């Protein structure tokens, strides 16, 4: 099938701010654009988002479409899909990259049907070879990597956050900005309110560092030491399913197939033995540190750095050591 031309990166905003993974898409998109010798475009959607156009251009986009409308302030499955689909149909983009966040995955699903366009969900790699676009994604809790190929004129991938580095700013880079009118029409989903949760904490999905706790902490109080270390190094707090099910910490902290998939540079697993569902959510992390009394457990076997011992004893010592070093460095 004759492919459409051009790559579109979708810049979703949440609570008025661009999601950080959008700049990661620019890295993936720029590589595709250079391989294919096609232009890289981006679209940014929200209620007041035009300021991001310059940012996108400086980070690699050749052209930025700005769709500003009050109805796009909060993610709405139908309206966001309508806005992006209208743009893709008008401009006949060949490839559409979306970050695989809650909103991005919902958008990708709606677009694949609306545009009759193939979709690779949660891609961990997107590349072009001699026979077309390919995307890799995990299945079966990460035990299987499947390679997706496309047979449609437009091809969509939702890309796992933290898979690609964020595109750097290149001062003075120029490009075109186009404002696009949007008529939402009748909306069947009405946004009522937003309840922020633990806003002082780093979001798991976008975290470069995660300190995660499991059953080995003994009880819910064990998470105090996890949070102390997380705060000391600017990390997000993760957890295994077992402790979430036990009510030690809310579900949103759960890492794994049933919870969130994460790809931080550093993952510190404390008292987590490493059930396959948990490993599925974090095995792509850069460096994995495991702290566990059982050297034979799956997490200790998989770890880049394994420390045999009790997390409750080791965590305060590690946090104190880090604080002492930082204090010494600052002095």
């Amino acid at each position: 099938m004759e492919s459409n031309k051009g790559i579109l990166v979708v810049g979703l905003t949440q609570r008025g701010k661009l999601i950080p993974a959008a700049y990661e898409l620019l890295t993936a998109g720029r590589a595709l654009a250079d391989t294919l010798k096609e232009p890289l475009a981006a679209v940014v959607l929200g209620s007041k988002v035009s300021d991001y156009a310059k940012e996108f251009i400086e980070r690699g986009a050749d052209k930025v479409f700005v769709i500003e409308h009050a109805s796009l302030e909060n993610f709405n499955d139908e309206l966001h899909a309508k806005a992006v689909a209208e743009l893709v149909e008008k401009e006949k983009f060949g490839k559409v990259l979306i970050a695989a966040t809650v909103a991005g995955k919902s958008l990708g699903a709606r677009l694949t049907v609306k545009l009759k366009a193939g979709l690779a969900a949660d891609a961990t790699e997107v590349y072009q070879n001699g026979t077309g676009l390919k995307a890799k994604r995990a299945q079966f809790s990460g035990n299987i990597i499947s390679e997706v190929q496309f047979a449609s004129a437009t091809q969509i991938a939702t890309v796992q956050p933290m898979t690609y580095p964020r595109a750097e700013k290149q001062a003075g880079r120029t490009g075109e900005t186009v404002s696009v009118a949007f008529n939402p029409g009748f909306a069947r989903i009405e946004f009522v309110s937003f309840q922020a949760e633990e806003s002082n904490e780093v979001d798991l999905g976008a975290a470069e560092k995660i300190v995660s706790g499991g059953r080995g902490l003994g009880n819910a109080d064990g998470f105090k030491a996890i949070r102390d270390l997380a705060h000391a190094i600017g990390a997000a707090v993760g957890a295994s399913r077992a402790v979430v099910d036990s009510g030690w910490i809310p579900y949103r902290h759960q890492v794994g197939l049933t919870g969130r998939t994460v790809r931080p540079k550093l993952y510190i697993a404390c008292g987590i033995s490493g059930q396959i569902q948990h490993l599925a959510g974090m095995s792509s992390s850069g460096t994995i540190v495991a702290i566990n009394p059982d050297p034979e457990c799956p997490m200790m076997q998989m770890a880049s750095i394994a420390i045999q011992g009790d997390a409750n004893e080791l965590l305060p010592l590690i946090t104190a050591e880090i604080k002492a070093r930082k204090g010494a460095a600052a002095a």
Partner: protein
Amino acid sequence: MSLNIVVCVKNTPTTTNVSVDPATGKIKSSGLVYAMNPFDEYAVEEAVRLKERIPGSTATALTVGPDSSESVVRDAISRGIDAGVIVSGPEFDGDNAYSASFALAAAIKKLNAEKPVTIVLFGKNTNDGNSGMVGAETAAWLDWPGVVSVKKIDSIDDKIAVVWRMMEDGTDVLKVTLPACLSTTKEINEPRLPSLKGKMAAKKAAVPKWTASDLGLNAAQLSELAPSLVAKCSTPPARPAGMKVEGASAAEKAKKLVDILIERKLI
């Protein structure tokens, strides 16, 4: 006022520890045992809870898959669902979210024509494909509103549902015009086990099988159900071997770990 609920379920392997046939690049399916996708248990439970909340409501379990998938419909009935339907046929064997959601939407249209459907519930994702796309794609095929990541159905009647959507940074509260498709998270409830009464009902239930022609689908529609597909499968590369941090005391181990993390510029 009562609800007519549809809950979509899938029969999936009970293990994710599967292997690839290197000759074909496909997953070896022989010897695998199948059961209800564990995430679908939450959707089934929520359907049963909605029935309990609004007496007179009915719930139908719907699946697409090979004939053997009938067992997953019976499992749903054993958990309190009233009836079930299986959509089956070679046209839907591709096992991709696009064709599965197309088949589900066609069946939901048929159910909707018999008696208007209020709400369609899905699990978060399947434990085999893992994409989490089917609920939102079904909404798109039906041109109904779709909400993913639903952790609570706060209020519902036959016209409007107020739902809580778990986002990365908190919870969105949304007012959704029905009918709509909702994909649930595991936070929405705690599934109960099948009851003895349910198991009896499941055994006795007649589970109709609908084919593409029963759903009024034509060859042209069915020929366009794979805009993307899995070319081949492989196992992920092994992680590089790790190192052990040894020490005579916990303090020494802690200090050594911090040394390594600083040296590798990880903190």
